[in-house]
């Protein structure tokens, strides 16, 4: 882009020219007209670039903002909610937790390794800029099936990128999700969440301080990378073969680590008036948003911005998304001290601007004014859309005709037919080794999940548990996304994601403190996408209220589509909870052995194959009726499970993806020493809708948890469950041997189907599912 650097004075401009200029920065003709009326003149190119960046979906949330108000953001202990660097919630009188989630979907589709790496770098800086030391990462990943060459490339590149950055900077990746589904073959999802610890009294905000304060830019010299990454890349679908080179950023975790230490040193030195990460739309958005929060103005001298290569234009300097940079404000007297503190960590701090009373963002380049616009025009005055939304979800597919049978078993998976016994064991084995369920260890073992030595429960369970040095209470963290049910009913998808994240915490004995959400959708300009967005948010909000958990931050990623092929609606929820007496928790949560313990199913017993992993696995098109979602029961189940686990009476696992049989398999692996299983699954009693063996074994439904407990524990459980009105069903026992047996019993206790395999054989299939062959991580 050639920069016209002098402000254009009220020159009437042909409409067509305006529209073309607007399109180059991702704005519509109407938005351009709005800019002209706000300024009272046509913007010059630099100014237009500022509007393009700040009014992008990514920065302005213009399509989503109206709907996000539905999410409850207040709760006991909430110190900072959405709109800050990170949400902050109190853990103890001494320690608070900072958490935030971000998507890096588009960059990861274009360049998987760097896209994922810079996503990790960005989320770490967000948490650090709230004054917290980042202590954990979680990554929510979605790809097409690994048999699809492009999807395999995404998978390998993204996993390597998350590890490449996270391992190097020294923040452990303690959990996440890795899902493979046809809907993500072109558009992978990379959602990353970061947790930080900070002293309870500390509050660092993304602001600039009073007029007269100095503005410092910390970190890497600015290059041309990622100019308009946010506004262009994330504001439309992907176009295959498109040249998106300028939009890609490269991460440097080594510099990231130095910047992290420098930022925290500055916070500790007590010199900061404000601190913020440079993310989407670079310097432009960091300056404008920070100034807007206080209603101040800011002057910035672009020639003082350290450059990586010569010849960057003012336009590029303002909009570059070069990584590993932060912006801070200090009092004039403190500039020298701040720079010394940063330099000690190997980081340069350039004084690039001054806070003013003007309320305007003014950029100078070698004496010339290259942009002069009201801060409020860039921020508060950004358009907000009430885009047309059409509800297509709920029940539509369920009421429609069954799709024609695809592969053998597709129709049966939805119907009643019970396959032969031999078939069932083989199917369980194949299902466990398929990308749907296969062990994620090949992924998380490439992540350092123990650095910083806080990891009490490492990845492999429903949630991870961390200690906090010097505190009795620890923290559990989990991430849960939902992309299958949303195809049938997007509200249900929202309910599921939220409830599952909290259920995962309960399985490790944690009480929820706060959640964050990441909403991944296709183009908001399609009414059906907007409809699913609205419904999913409504589902999240309902669940958050019913489960009494505030949503302290979130992120929206639209335009996840290629050539008009949208991803399925995918809300992802990250949650943190408190684990009391964490020092003793490891022995309780990771026992030596569970053999001889009883197996109980707690909670709802309704299940269905509709949009279940098994239905997809069997080659079916998602169809059928989803089981009812009773949020009140969900809450009671979570309370019961939490109490049982906390008191050391049970080891629990959520019955999520894949249903009961895979959950039982996971339970047999929950102790250091694997156990066998010997269980009975009575049809009908096993739940509403469970009238056939496939649904009983593989059907999915909310509010279900499988626990192992000893005999006194079982008595306790029975009493507690009746007090809390939670249904209970005893399924059998875990055994010392290697046999994994489930008998499905029909009327009069007759065995109508069974699974019977050596547990070690199932384990081999499960463990090797993502290893070797074409699915290998490396």
């Amino acid at each position, binding site marked *: 882009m050639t920069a016209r650097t002098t402000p254009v004075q009220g020159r009437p401009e042909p409409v067509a020219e305006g529209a073309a200029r607007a399109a180059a920065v991702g704005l519509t003709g109407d938005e351009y007209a709005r800019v002209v009326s706000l300024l009272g003149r046509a913007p010059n190119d630099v100014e237009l670039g500022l509007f393009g960046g700040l009014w992008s979906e990514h920065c302005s949330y213009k399509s989503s903002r109206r709907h996000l108000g539905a999410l409850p953001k207040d709760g006991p202990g909430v110190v900072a909610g959405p709109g800050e660097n990170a949400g902050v919630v109190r853990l103890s009188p001494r320690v608070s937790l900072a958490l935030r989630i971000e998507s890096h979907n588009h960059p990861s589709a274009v360049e998987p390794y760097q896209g994922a790496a810079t996503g990790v770098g960005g989320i770490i800086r967000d948490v650090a800029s709230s004054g917290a030391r980042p202590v954990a990462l979680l990554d929510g990943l979605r790809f097409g099936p690994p048999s699809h060459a492009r999807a395999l490339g995404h998978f390998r590149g993204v996993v*390597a990128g998350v*590890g490449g950055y996270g*391992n*190097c*900077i*020294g923040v452990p990746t303690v959990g996440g999700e890795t899902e493979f589904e046809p809907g993500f073959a072109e558009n992978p999802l990379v959602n990353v969440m970061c947790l930080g610890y900070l002293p309870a009294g500390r509050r660092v905000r993304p602001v600039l301080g009073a007029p007269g304060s100095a503005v410092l830019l910390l970190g890497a010299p600015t290059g041309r990378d990622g100019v308009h990454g946010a506004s262009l890349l994330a504001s439309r679908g992907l176009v295959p073969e498109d040249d998106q080179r300028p939009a890609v950023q490269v991460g*440097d*975790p*080594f*510099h990231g*680590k*130095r910047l992290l230490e420098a930022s925290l040193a500055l916070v500790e030195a007590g010199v900061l008036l404000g601190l913020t990460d440079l993310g989407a739309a670079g310097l432009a958005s960091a300056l404008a948003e920070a100034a807007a929060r206080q209603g101040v103005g800011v002057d910035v001298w672009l020639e003082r911005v350290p450059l990586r290569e010569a010849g960057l234009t003012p336009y590029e300097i303002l909009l570059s998304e070069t990584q590993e940079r932060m912006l801070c404000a200090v009092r004039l007297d403190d500039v020298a001290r701040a720079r010394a503190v940063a330099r000690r*960590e*190997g980081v340069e701090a350039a004084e690039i601007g001054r806070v003013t009373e003007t309320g305007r963002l003014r950029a100078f380049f070698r004496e010339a004014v290259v942009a002069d616009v009201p801060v409020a025009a860039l921020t508060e005055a950004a358009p907000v859309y009430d885009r047309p939304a059409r509800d297509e979800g709920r029940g539509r597919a369920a009421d429609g005709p069954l799709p024609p049978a695809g592969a053998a078993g597709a129709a049966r998976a939805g119907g009643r037919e019970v396959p032969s016994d031999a078939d069932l064991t083989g199917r369980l084995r194949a299902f466990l080794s398929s990308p749907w369920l296969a062990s994620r260890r090949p992924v*998380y*073992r*490439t*992540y*350092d*999940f*123990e*650095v*910083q*030595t*806080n*990891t*009490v429960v490492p990845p492999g369970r429903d949630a991870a548990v961390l*200690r906090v*040095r010097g505190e009795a209470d620890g923290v559990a963290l989990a991430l849960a996304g939902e992309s299958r049910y949303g195809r049938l009913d997007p509200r249900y998808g929202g309910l599921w994601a939220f409830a599952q994240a909290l259920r995962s915490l309960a399985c490790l004995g944690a009480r929820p403190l706060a959640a964050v959400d990441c909403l991944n959708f296709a183009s908001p300009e399609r009414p059906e996408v907007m409809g699913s967005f609205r419904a999913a948010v409504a589902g999240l909000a309902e669940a958050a209220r019913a489960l009494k958990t505030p949503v302290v931050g979130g992120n929206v990623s639209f335009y996840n589509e290629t050539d008009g092929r949208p991803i399925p609606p995918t809300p992802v929820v990250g949650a943190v909870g408190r684990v009391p007496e*964490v*020092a*003793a*928790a*490891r*022995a309780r949560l990771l026992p030596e052995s569970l053999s001889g313990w009883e197996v109980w199913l707690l909670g709802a017993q309704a299940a269905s194959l509709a949009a279940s992993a098994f239905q997809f696995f069997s080659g079916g098109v998602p169809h059928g009726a989803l089981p009812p979602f009773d949020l009140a029961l969900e809450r009671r189940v979570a309370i019961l499970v939490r109490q049982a686990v906390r008191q050391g009476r049970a080891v629990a696992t959520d019955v999520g993806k894949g249903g009961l049989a895979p959950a039982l398999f996971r339970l047999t692996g929950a102790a250091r020493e694997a156990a066998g299983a010997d269980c009975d699954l009575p049809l009908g009693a096993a739940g509403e809708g469970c009238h056939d063996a496939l649904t009983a074994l593989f059907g999915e439904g909310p509010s279900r948890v499988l626990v192992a407990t000893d005999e006194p524990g079982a008595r306790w459980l029975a009493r507690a469950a009746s007090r809390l009105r939670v249904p209970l069903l005893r399924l059998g026992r875990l055994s010392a041997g290697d046999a994994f047996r489930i008998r499905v019993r029909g009327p009069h206790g007759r065995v109508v189907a069974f699974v019977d395999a050596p547990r070690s054989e199932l384990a081999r299939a499960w463990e090797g599912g993502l290893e070797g062959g074409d699915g290998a*991580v*490396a």
Partner: protein
Amino acid sequence: MRIGVVVFPGSNCDRDALSAIELARPGCAVAIRAEEAELPPVDALVLPGGFAYGDYLRAGALAAVAPVMEGVRRFADSGRPVLGICNGFQVLCEAGLLPGALAPNESGRFVCEEVCLFVESEATPFTAGLGSRRLRLPVAHAHGRYQADAATLDRLERNGQVVFRYEGQSPNGSARRIAGVRNERGNVLGMMPHPERRVEDALGGRDGLLLFAALLRHLEASA
């Protein structure tokens, strides 16, 4: 008694090492910045894990020429105890203070998991009294495949310089399943597994504490 932990830009297990040492003996751990040429007075040195200087070029290569390394070399030459953990091991090999080199894992991938190792030499300040014990410690590295030519490997085995060996399959394809080696004199030890990550039951065990306790005993005896 003071044990120094060298903090390179990009080290990320420095705090973990400092707190493990503090747990073994409160008040004796000191951080030393690698950009400073002079070592403060200390009785032993630990080079911690992480990605010093980003591990760019080769793991440990750029750190091996950091300003502090001259001091580390003199310290080692004087016979005082030096322990390199993970990245620290890589740095010591790159600096020539230990024989051999650490190549990329056979799998080509980073690996983070708990392994078992045997202590095969007591002739270091960190393993005295731990003879033929079996330790459970975690590894977390992408470049942990110990390599040296056959003659060197034979010599190391003959001299008892192989201090730790992985039990069963090595997680990285190390020559002769070597997990840690010492110099001839025995005062410099490098190991890929992380003892500082196993110093509390709450975090999975205390086998790592044995090494720090052995070091303290050694320092006391020689004080």
